[in-house]
């Protein structure tokens, strides 16, 4: 199966990568990580190096893309164009009270993707 993992720089990035890694290890999935543009921070090339390191420590091959523009639509478009089987993204954070809040990217992908979507909690 081909997995597309969408990440940006946030405190949830690690959890998303770990979910993808767990699946890839168990199922032998092929992983592509797409780094999307959001308001969250430092340049993609820095994050790219971190992602490479994360997967190479576990000897998993990964290809990395950088997507610019509207994160949700770029992800869905890439997933459809290249026939990915599943998209894995951050499933939202918790409010101070503990309510689940979907990110804008999660909302868009969930409503528009034609393949299976995994929201990481």
């Amino acid at each position, binding site marked *: 199966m081909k997995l597309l993992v969408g990440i940006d720089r946030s405190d949830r990035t690690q959890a998303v990568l770990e979910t993808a890694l767990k699946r890839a290890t168990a199922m032998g999935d092929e992983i592509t990580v797409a780094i999307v543009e959001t308001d969250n921070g430092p340049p993609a090339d820095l994050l790219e190096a971190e992602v490479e390191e994360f997967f190479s420590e576990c000897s998993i091959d990964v290809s990395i893309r950088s997507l610019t523009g509207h994160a949700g639509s770029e992800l869905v478009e890439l997933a459809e164009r290249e026939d990915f089987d599943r998209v894995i993204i951050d499933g939202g954070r*918790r*409010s*101070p*009270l*503990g*309510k*689940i*809040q*979907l990110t*804008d990217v999660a*909302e868009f992908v969930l409503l528009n993707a034609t393949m299976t979507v995994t929201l990481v909690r």
Partner: protein
Amino acid sequence: MTRVYPSEPAGSFESPPIPFEDAAGHTVRIHEYTGGDFDAFLEMYRAFDPTDRAQGIPPTTDDRIQEWLDRILTDDAVNVIASTEDRLVGHATLVPDGTEEYELAIFVLGEFQELGIGTKLITALLGAGQEQGIEQVWLSVERWNTAARTLYRKVGFEPSNTQNFEFEMSLRL
């Protein structure tokens, strides 16, 4: 993203304790929770109808309920409860998010809903918040939940973000 608040305060709210009789004739006491009797909360949330949950709260298993209560029954939060003679039937809370802003939520057990308890609870909670100098209160509510939205509007909440799945409202105290 900065949250938008109404420019004018919503007015003054009655502070707890508020004794009253609900529409079904139960004697209900609305008062501020300042510690103790954690088990009454556990009991109430165990009895909470799972179909009344919103955005993952209240949680459903004992462990998760406890962990969640530990996070909201804190000294820097404001908690107001509704109790009958023998049990807790409602709970409203204002939880700080590390800035000046407080998130509001309210829970009433199924069989005690639509008896006026929610209105009293939210009034008392805002009254207690006012006493503590809190000025910015926000909440999110599921879009389809018109009963809740009507209640929030009635006490002065205004829509602040309507772009997402969850409908956000805010109020200036």
